[in-house]
């Protein structure tokens, strides 16, 4: 890699939290993680048609978010089909 250069970017607090958490757990430099992630992403976009790329994150509406949080906090019991799946 040639001489380093500095960039500035505005990102969501959620992404910043993920970044901080990963850096803290794995002990890598933020700059290394960011550069590696960008290169991975660009490489994927070059190698795979856009319609086949699996986006790394999902943003949902508040309505959907409420449903998801409700289900996580109070999961529905397994359905009949689920029980059969685990009996077989």
């Amino acid at each position: 890699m040639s001489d380093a250069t500095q960039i500035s970017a505005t990102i969501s607090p959620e992404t910043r939290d993920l970044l901080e958490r990963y850096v803290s757990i794995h002990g890598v430099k933020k700059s290394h993680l960011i550069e590696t992630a960008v290169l991975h992403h660009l490489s994927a976009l070059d190698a795979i048609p856009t319609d086949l790329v699996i986006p790394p994150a999902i943003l949902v509406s508040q309505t959907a978010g409420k449903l998801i949080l409700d289900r996580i906090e109070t999961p529905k019991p397994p359905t009949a089909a689920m029980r059969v799946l685990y009996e077989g």
Partner: protein
Amino acid sequence: MKVDVRLLRPDDDRLAFSSGDAELDRFFHKFSAQNQFQLHIGTTYVAVYESEILGFVTLSATSITIENLPKSARKRLPRYPLPALRLARLAVAQKSQGQGIGKQLLRATFQIAHEMADRTGCVAVVVDAKANAVSFYEQFGFEPFEVVSGELGDRPSPLPMILALGSIPGG
């Protein structure tokens, strides 16, 4: 029919597989190995019977962010954004459809979700369901949810559905 579900290998004969869905077959033939072995952006598991691939499922770790989630609500969550396992693609060979192979791939997916929960966190399984597969997922408790961004680029657009890990036995 009881199949062995294992990770895709570089030397697997992917071209012999045909589900009858051109888009799923295109992905499996041309890009599943690239995704897994070069780009590391998705992991494909295959259902194998006597060395023949009869189905596959492609999984990817994902995170769910809720639009404008109040800070007070965020504080109640042990992990945020919410970590989840995304079932991006699942297909069964045309000649083997209706023999329970999709269900075995789904059960393997659930097992992986529980392992992910133990290692790095996972609160739910998310599936991008094709229109003809919505009822298949509904029977296991998956529910549709509205995605603002992060949907797959498949056409026609799949329906995002979610199932909380707590609704899946084995935890």
